């Protein structure tokens, strides 16, 4: 198999995903184009005609974010017409799925150079506004036991015995770590300010982080999923998790991933193309894995997918120096740490989606980039990025610095 290398990683700052968020002014295609231009510029005025494909993740592909945004972004960014583009969705894992697809394209030897990543303007196209059989079609919904993710996260907390204070404490740490990382400029290597068509900067920093968060403040927030749980979703969970008598609703806006806008991209290729372009590989993509898990609780796929990746790579948890586990909800990461039996000090050392937000289609690619930056900063070797995924899935990618 051909080895796949990461040559570069870039991301936009994450803007608050509301109408007062800075990136609400910017079209999603423009977010992608900004990064395509940056990639081109950062890599010796890259000859884009050497790029085979642009693989983009986008979870809510509707409206101006809809159809095959990747191909149109290639054209909009004025990259070579020969670059193809594909947009896919593996729900919240889409950004990492793009990277994995790129690695597989390279690994198979079918292609040489691929740009992979994702985008989501959650402020413009609300999560769920693309419908889908799972939530919308009552027959499918009933047969599979659909419940919103927050209900699943609360179920994890109930099963694991995580109290409200436990999950709030986790959230507080995420905020503190992210604020420190931002203050120390740890994100600077990959962070590309978003500029408008005049070249004026729209946003140059992650604007969702709240470094001044306190445990007392978090304790004030109302549980987000209690009401809908009582309307019927709790009952759906309780029919599957038969030892539970009720769900303890502990998650809220402060300990769940934030709704933000953003994009992320990576340049991935084989060794030969790097040599040809005079680029230095930063890391090798060692292994990718996806797998399904129980859909009603939905968010427990991280452990199994990570183990699958490790096993196939002939590695174990102990071989991994740093982990990035997407902070969809506090309980998800806490459970994953237990499942994998790993030291929390190795996980999300610069905070995560609770502090910075989770631009659905982009996050997977963004956290892998953050992981690579941090491995380089600490001069460590191996990292694993993983996300829980809608409808009950998990995804994992293992990288190793070269």
């Amino acid at each position: 198999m051909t080895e796949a290398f990461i040559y570069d990683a870039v991301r936009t700052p994450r803007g608050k995903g509301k109408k007062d968020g800075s990136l609400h002014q910017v079209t999603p295609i423009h977010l992608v184009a900004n990064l395509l231009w940056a990639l081109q510029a950062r890599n010796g005025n890259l000859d884009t005609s050497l790029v085979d494909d642009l693989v983009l993740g986008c979870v809510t592909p509707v409206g101006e974010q809809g159809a095959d945004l990747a191909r149109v972004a290639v054209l909009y960014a004025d990259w070579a017409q020969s670059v193809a583009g594909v947009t896919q969705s593996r729900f919240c894992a889409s950004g990492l799925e793009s990277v994995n697809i790129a690695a597989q394209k390279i690994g198979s030897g079918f292609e040489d150079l691929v740009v992979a990543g994702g985008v989501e303007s959650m402020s413009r196209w609300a999560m769920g506004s693309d419908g889908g059989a799972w939530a919308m079609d009552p027959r499918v919904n009933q047969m599979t036991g659909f419940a919103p993710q927050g209900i699943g996260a609360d179920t994890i907390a109930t099963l694991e015995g995580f109290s409200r204070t436990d999950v709030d404490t986790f959230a507080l740490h995420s905020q503190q770590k992210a604020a420190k990382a931002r203050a120390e400029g740890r994100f600077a290597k990959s962070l590309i300010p978003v500029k408008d068509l005049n070249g004026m900067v729209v946003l140059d920093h992650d604007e969702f982080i709240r470094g001044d968060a306190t445990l007392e403040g978090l304790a004030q927030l109302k549980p987000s999923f209690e009401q809908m749980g009582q309307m019927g979703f709790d009952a759906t969970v309780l029919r599957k998790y038969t030892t539970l008598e009720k769900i303890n609703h502990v998650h809220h806006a402060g300990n769940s991933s934030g709704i933000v806008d953003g994009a992320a991209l990576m340049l991935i290729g084989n060794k030969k193309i790097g040599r040809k372009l005079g680029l230095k590989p930063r890391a090798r993509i060692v292994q990718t894995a996806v797998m399904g898990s129980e859909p009603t609780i939905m968010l427990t796929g991280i452990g199994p997918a990570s183990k699958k990746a490790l096993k196939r790579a002939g590695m174990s948890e102990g071989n991994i120096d740093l982990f990035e586990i997407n902070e969809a909800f506090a309980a998800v990461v806490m459970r994953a740490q237990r499942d994998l039996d790993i030291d929390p000090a190795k996980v999300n050392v610069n905070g995560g989606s609770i502090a910075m937000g989770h631009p659905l289609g982009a996050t997977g690619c963004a956290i892998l980039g953050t992981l690579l930056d941090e491995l380089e900063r600490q001069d460590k070797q191996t990292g694993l990025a993983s996300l829980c995924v809608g409808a009950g899935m998990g995804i994992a990618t293992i990288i190793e610095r070269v």
Partner: protein
Amino acid sequence: MSAVQYNKDADGIVTLILDMPGRSMNVLNEELTGPFSDAIAKIEADASVTGVIITSGKKEFLAGADIDKVYKMTDPAEAFEMAEAYKAFLRRLEKCGRPVVAALNGTALGGGLELALACHYRVAIDDPKAKFGLPEVKLGLLPGGGGTQRLPRLMGIQPALPLMLEGKELKAAQARQQGIIHELATDKEDMLAKARAWIAANPKPVQPWDDKKFKWPGGDSKSPANAQLWAIAPSMASAKSYGNYPAVTNIMSCVFEGGITDFDTGCRVESRYFANCVVSQVSKNMIGSLWFQLNGINKGSSRPQGFERSTVKKLGILGAGMMGAGIAYVSAKVGIECVLLDTTQDAADKGKAYSANLLDKDMKKGRQTQAGKDELLARIKATTSYDDLKGCDLIIEAVFEDRGIKADVTRKAEAQLEKTAVFASNTSTLPITGLAEASERPKNFIGLHFFSPVDKMPLVEIIVGKKTSKETLARGFDYVQQIRKTPIVVNDSRGFYTSRCFGTYPMEGLTLLAEGQHPRAIEMAGLQAGMPVGPLAVQDEVSLSLSMHIIEQTRKDYAAEGKTVAEHPGVAVTEKMVKQLDRPGKKAGKGFYDYPAGAPKHLWAGLAEAFPLAEQQLPQQEMIDRLLYAQANEAAKCHEEGVVETVADTNIGSIFGWGFAPFQGGALQFINAVGLENFVKRSKQLEKKYGARFKPAKLLVKMAKEGKRFE
């Protein structure tokens, strides 16, 4: 005579009168749709017809489809074609180019309302007895005549869904308020006049869904508000149905998909889901029991023939506790004069106050008037004097379950009665034949076993003692029907039928607990099986201490006969809960559950220590099987022993008496549906694994061998 009379008047208005010969009610079948279709063809061909009024020559308009035919269908293609044919016919009607008015002189349910919905205008007589709705779901079916398409397009998805999912029946005024009926009329003449007036004013009406500018009220299935509804509606439905009712899912699918497609495609989709319901085991179960068998019971299939129908005019009730008070209420409600007797005036008054409370609640909901309340209460005399029982044609004894006390009140009451009066005991445990020994007239002595709360529970178990006469049984039967409850007839034996079988349900739950199964998982298995309450919760309601009392009484009875009881393994749990752990049940605020004031009950944390979890936790289905098989096998034994003689009484008694899963169609129908051979095979497996109580009834083994089923 044709089932559809065709009358054209001078104004060119055709009145079609549905009046099927030889039937008291119109039903939808070929006998009706044949001539109806001819009439439509005639209208289509006659340009001088200016409008059409459809009404009925019967008391009711049209009560729905011919269930007999649907019940027999096993080929989905046949069911599909039937639904398609009916809809094609309704489509012709609403597109015939002339105004069509449904003049609803009475009840229009199911296919009857679907016919009305295919008319351009609906006028109904404001008769409080008339009912309007799409109740198909109650028989495991769905409205297959376009109801799932027209109703949501008429009133909106959100309000239409519950009407079909719950099969709600509306009164004329409610249907008018919800926009299902356009106009109310005072009587037949007024109704027809209003129909004519509307025809005159609307010569070219178009159904909303055929209007090019049609917009869904409240949006179609794609609208954001309805997208949210569709996300949670299945969870809300399953929270009640536990996914056991395919019709519920199918109705949602019809409405959802119809909210995306055009009207005609939606209709076709509906036919597919309809066919799926028709051939489903659940609809066969429900139609078989809750339609045919229940109707048979209500027509008196278990009532001895040759005795004139009797009515009770004056009823004496001995004991004004919860049961006595409830019996007084339901009897006074149908106009029976009641004497409610207890040992103190206070106790008797308290029993009467029970009725006052219920009436107050009804008044608050606008279902009762002050005058109605006063009238009903005036029929109940609370007393301590046996003299007041003079002239009673029926006495129901509802005193403490103690033979001595019962014998005493029996003698005292009989002293006041005419020789023809019937004496009934509401005992739930003591054999009637034994109690009748205290009576001077054991032929007139019978058991009438009510269920609590009496005003809500639809069943009365009639217990026939050794000496009870047929006439007494007939009179007991008539009384139960007089108070609008369903009677089943049972022969005398310990626990009779319902108590004996019901007990197997909580006892199996208790056994599972003793085996170390998770208490919550046990409760969930009961609910998933289709029981209304989990086995531990229901045992708390019944009270563990009461069960213990009965267990000890039984032990004594057996000991007196020199025998020992082969006790159910669940008995040990009852004993431990009552005697060691001081958890006597809900009344005491502590049983398997804790009952904190002002908060929902929750399982007692001490269960974890008292009944530690086994390493091996059973799959839910294994527990569901055990809970259902235990009940069904006991019911089969009762049937075999002649405790309950008819299949109908056995099935209906199980559903109405102790809440056996309605979608299974009752305890014996459950066995039918599993298949006799499979049931016997599985029972033997369960017997081997869990004990002799699962040994299949001999009758079942015999029937399985002979390839028979309960008919």
